[in-house]
Each structure stands twice: as structure tokens, then as C-alpha cells.
């Protein structure tokens, strides 16, 4: 059964890695619902957060293909109930319409939105939340001459995760593919072979 999976990919910070990761999906004609890259809690290690709809069998195979990449440390995959996730969205609406319409203000409160910019000509609101929260506000604001809308990719924290360093070590204990010893060096840049 296909369902939403969030993949968290820990990598080296290297030019070209984005492409190396993306082609693993495009080669299999899997479209990405969301793709985010950011620094992680460990200096110089990056994390990608990728959302796809697929079966667990396919996801497992992809995780191994991702881990096969020389610059990838570790990949986790989780269903939505195993993670805390958020997106941020920005909405640009004509200020005149907002001023006139009290209902909009009420709506904004309901959706937990904030005004980030208020100008004579337009106002920009911001909200963070999950897809439906963001989309519901979008639906509402569309009725009020919405000028522009943008939504960020998903970022997610794994509920059970105690940070990657420990998680990597834990996972490796149960995972016959990995030698935990390699990761003792994770936080000691000077001790490792580096480019």
C-alpha cells in the first residue's frame, strides 16, 4: 500500500550531492512531494528531508540506494505518526480588502497566522503547520483576492530520535550492515580522513 513516508538523509556537505540524491528518485520515476536541505545538529553534516508517497518495500530499497552513496551517512524513513513536521506558508493579500473585512481577521486568528508585513497596498501573512492547516487558510484567503501564495517544503523531527549521533549508533547496533566504530569519529573532524 502506498503511503506518505518522510526520509531523513544525513550527508556530507558537498557540491553535487543534491543531484546525486535527486536522481535516485527521478531514475525510478518517483516524484518528490517535498524536498528540503538544511544543516543538522552536527557541524558539517547536512540533512535532507524528503517526502514521497510509496510502498514500504520501494522505500526500503530507495533507502539502501541512498545509503550506497559514498557521501551519505545514514537514512531514516518514517511514517507521519512517527514524526513532528511542519511547513511554513506566506500569503499576500490586498490590504484594502483586509481592512474592510473583519471576517478575515477572525480567520487569521483561527488559523494561527501572523502578519509579517503590512503596507498600504498589500499585507503578507505567515502560518506554520501541516498541509491541511496551510491549505485551509489558502482556501479561505482565495476568496479575498489573494495575490500570491508560497509554501515551504516539509521539515521534520523524528519523535523517537535522540539526535543523530546517538541514533546512528543505536541503529547500527541492530543493523548488520554497519560498523559502529566508524561513527566514533563523527564529531571529531581532525581524526578523520577529509578532503
Amino acid at each position, binding site marked *: 500500500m502506498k503511503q506518505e513516508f518522510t526520509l531523513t538523509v544525513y550527508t556530507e556537505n558537498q557540491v553535487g550531492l543534491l543531484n546525486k540524491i535527486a536522481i535516485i528518485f527521478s531514475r525510478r520515476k518517483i516524484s518528490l512531494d517535498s524536498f528540503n536541505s538544511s544543516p543538522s545538529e552536527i557541524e558539517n553534516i547536512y540533512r535532507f528531508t524528503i517526502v514521497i508517497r510509496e510502498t514500504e518495500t520501494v522505500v*526500503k530499497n530507495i533507502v*539502501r540506494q541512498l*545509503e550506497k552513496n559514498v*557521501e551519505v551517512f545514514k537514512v531514516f524513513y518514517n511514517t507521519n505518526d512517527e514524526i513532528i513536521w511542519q511547513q511554513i506558508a506566506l500569503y499576500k493579500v490586498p490590504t484594502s480588502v483586509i481592512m474592510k473585512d473583519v471576517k478575515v481577521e477572525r480567520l487569521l486568528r483561527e488559523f494561527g497566522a501572523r502578519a509579517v508585513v503590512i503596507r498600504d497596498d498589500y499585507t503578507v501573512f505567515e502560518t506554520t503547520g501541516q498541509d491541511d492547516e496551510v491549505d485551509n487558510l489558502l482556501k479561505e484567503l482565495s476568496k479575498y483576492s489573494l495575490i500570491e501564495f508560497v509554501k515551504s517544503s516539509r521539515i521534520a523531527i523524528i519523535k523517537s530520535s535522540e539526535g543523530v549521533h546517538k541514533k546512528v549508533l543505536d541503529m547500527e547496533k541492530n543493523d548488520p*550492515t554497519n560498523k559502529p566504530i566508524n561513527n566514533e569519529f563523527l564529531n571529531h573532524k581532525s581524526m578523520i580522513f577529509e578532503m
Partner: protein
Amino acid sequence: MKTLELDKIEKAGRQPISTTGSLAVIDALLSESVTTIFGYPGGAIMPIYDSLFGFRDKLNHILVRHEQGAIHAAQGYARVSGKTGVVFATSGPGATNLVTGLADALIDSTPLVCITGQVFAHLLGTDAFQETDIINITTPITKWNYQITDATEIPEVLAKAFYIAKSGRPGPVLIDITKNAQLQLFDYIGYRPCIHVRSYRPNPIVRPEYIEQAAKLINEAKKPFVVFGQGIILGNAEKEFQSFIEKGNLPSAWTIMGMSAIPTDHPLGVGMLGMHGNYGPNFLTNECDVLIAVGMRFDDRVTGRLDKYAKQAKVIHLDIDPAEIDKNVQTAVSVWGDCKETLPLLTNLIENKSRPEWFKEFEIKKEKETTTVIEKELNPTEGGLTMGEVIQVLNELTNGDAVIVTDVGQHQMVACRYAKQNKTRSNITSGGLGTMGYALPAAIGAKLGAPEREVIAIMGDGGAQMNIQELGTIMQFQPNVKILILNNSYLGMVRQWQELFHEKRYSFTDIQSPNFVQVAKAYNIDGRQISQREELREGLKQMLDNPSSFLLEVAVLHEDNVFPMVPQGKGVAEIVLSKEEI
């Protein structure tokens, strides 16, 4: 190895010396004990070639006639020797000409380090003359690639390249070096081989409990069956593997890539798997109760239709690459690790059982294949020559000691079905990619990688024309390779499919050939053409006895077919022995 640069560094009292990037490249190769390079120069790699000039006595550079020839030669070299093949090519067209070989080397796990020149760093992205984004082009077909724009990166990146290419599951690495980095002077402190990359774990640790589970399954099995691939050869685990099957008394079949890991006439060897493999091992895959896969990846040419593959069997999979486990076939026990390590552990725990009935089944199937297919193919008495009888006579003359390098098509399947091979690393072929034009350059590389061995390239008339320019390389560098063209006047394998599945509509498969012998002679290579049964033995003998390279063209039956065959989309047990069964 003490290199010249290192010498200078020592003389300077271990102080950094000022070196160019291109000299650092040469120094890296010498430090990695590289002796042979296959390449072709051009503008963007000229500084490296200039530095190479001073080291011609240490580095044997083979000037090929096409960069595709260079990379296939490097593959042949790596496959026979177990060393990493090294390739030089220039930017743009030189680099793009490597693409087929990279894809081939990746899918067949061949260790290569390819060094390409690139335009000056300040010109990157400007569509400069001969600029191609080779890094992005080759990302999906390399194990690792990297672009160097600054000379200071050269020693460490090359060290990493050699380490990654050879360790774990081997594969091709491409390093693109901009011209400014090659020319740049920098403070060089010598070359340090790489032994660890923090995000890369080439060898999974072995878990004893999986070994125990696997041994238990094997010991309980009534009909165990071993299928093995190139992993054994890549892991140098031929002895360990032989002890394993001998102790367990396990019938074992090879994939085309695993061929020669045990002698082809080993009593426990039951033949080749795959679309044109042997009848017994294919058919009985669906009869065994425990299937033990060692260093193979369940390619679709081996499994046929997956939902009809070994469904009754519990599968044990030994592989070094975690991504192969459960990729195509679900395992009951997966033994992740280097089979050089895992096999002896498993051998310790298994029992010797005789299982005569199970072996009998293989014999019965073999008999059936022999009477319906093999006998006709190897011992015809009338009509044109068959490919099989050519291989048969060749076996008698070489006694199975030669390295057989095959191209792609019917002759490849026939050669792999019937060639006798006594030693490991004797079967060099393009398995996963099926690259026509592979054999001639790969044979050149194979001869350089194993100069003491007889190397025979076996090609079809189609494939022989795909990298025929490499006869020029043979002319110039004189590797003693024997070239055997089995000419059926067709693109035979495609014609076979057209006959069997497209109502004999021979759409563009009748291919004309030049007079191959005359072409060879134009390159100063002696040759002969034969078409009669009476000439066969003597012709082959002449080829083998010739002190240098020799081209023998054998005219064979035009419309012969390779059988048995697992038709596409069918299960392995639906293997057919003749056209009438399709």
C-alpha cells in the same frame, strides 16, 4: 613505492616542495603502484600528458584509437588482474566517449579510476570549447565522481578515488581535473593513501547469528542449490567457495559473471544460469528447497519472471552490498558481508550430506539438454559450421587455460555455454550492460593485465565492427591477442528474436562486413578466413600458434539459434529447448 616526488621531498628534509598539479597526478599513480594507463590525449589534459612524458619508463601508456576503447581495455585489465584500471581522457568528447564504459563498469562492478581533463575553472559554465558537464553526466554511472578545480585537492582526492574504486563492491570512479589545477604550482607534501572515508562503509560487519541461521537452513535442506556470481571472484574467495560447496556437497550454478570462479568441469558445477543458460540449473531453481545465492544480484536475465522465481525456496543471500539484499528476491536469511569472510564461517557449520536423488535430477536434465541441444551444436556432421563446434575445438586446443573475452550476442552465449575454463578470471564479458564492441578493447587490456596468459577475443560480425579501430592499438603496442570472429552474416541475437517473436521479419539485421582478414592485414595483423569443417582445427591451431596477434574469421551457419532459452516474460521453469516449444 618511492616516487620521484617523494624523493625530492626527502631531500628537502621533509619540507613541502613546489609541484604542479599534473605532477601530483603522476605521483599519485606511481604511489598506487599503477603500471598501465589506457588513454587518449587532448587540449584539456595536455599538462598531465606532459608530465607523463618524463615517466614513460614507469607508466606504460597505451594509446588507444577511441576513448571507448580505452575504458573497455581498462575493464579487461582490471577483470583479469584484480587491479584497478586507469584511464586518461580529455574534456568534452573525450570524456563523453567514456560514458558506455562507465555504465558497463558500474553494473559489472569493475574497479576503474578515470581521469578526465576539464576546461579552466574560470570557464566552467560558459560553454567553453570542449566543455561538458561530465560530472553530472556520469553521476548515475559512477560509484563516485569529483571535480578538482584546485591543485591542492589532487593528492587526497586521488587517494580517495583509488580507495573507493577498489573497496567494498568495486566500481568506476571519475575524477575531472580543470586545466588550471593541472598547471598550478602548490606546496606538495607527498601522497598518503586513503584508508577511511567517514561516510562510507565498504564492508558490512558479519553477524554470527545470520551465519548460524543460514547453516541451519542448509543442513535441513533436502534440495539445496547454490547460485553464484562475480562476488566470489571480486572477493578473491574462490578457494573459500570451493571448500564451502565441497563440504556441503552442494550443486552449484554460475551466472555469466560468476563463470570460472570454479573450474567449469568441477563435479559440483551444474552449469550456467540465465536466459541461455543450462536447462537443469534454470529448471531446478524452481524445485530446490533452499536457494543459496553467493555474490550475485538476481538480474532479470537470471531470474526470468520474478513472481515465478524460486517461490518454493527459502532464499539465503550472501552479498557485500546491502542494497542488493531483498532488491529483487525476498530472502529468508541475508548474510551481509565480504564472502571471503562469511563463507568460511558458514563452511564450519554445515554438514556433508550426499542427497543422491537431488543430484540425479540435475543429471536427468543434463541428459535431456545434451540429446536435444548440445549434441547437435557440438558435433554436427553436415551443413555449415556451428558456433558451438568452434568453441569445442578451441577447448581441445587450449585445454581450458585461455582467457576468453566475448562480445555480445549469440557467440557470447555459445562461448559461455561451452567454453572450458580451468582458472579463475578467465571469462571476461560485458554481463550487465551487454555492450557490443566490448571484446576487442577488453582483450587488449586483458592481455596487458595477464601477459602470461593466452587471450582470445570472440566476436560476432556485428560487434567486431563496433570498435574495430582498436586493431590500430594492437598494431602499435603489439599485445598478443587472438581475434576470433564468428561470422553468421547477421546481427544474430536480434535476428533470433525476430525469428522467434516477430514472425521472421528480419528488420535491419542482415549486416554486411568488410573482408576482416584484409582489414587486419592493413593493420599488419595476420589473418585467415575459413568456412569448412575440415579447416577448423587447423585454422584455430594456426591462430593459436601464431607468435603474435592473429585474426581468424569463421563463417558459421547464418540462421542458427541459441537454445535453451527462457523466453522474456517467462519463468525459469518455462525454459524451452527448441523453437517448436515456444
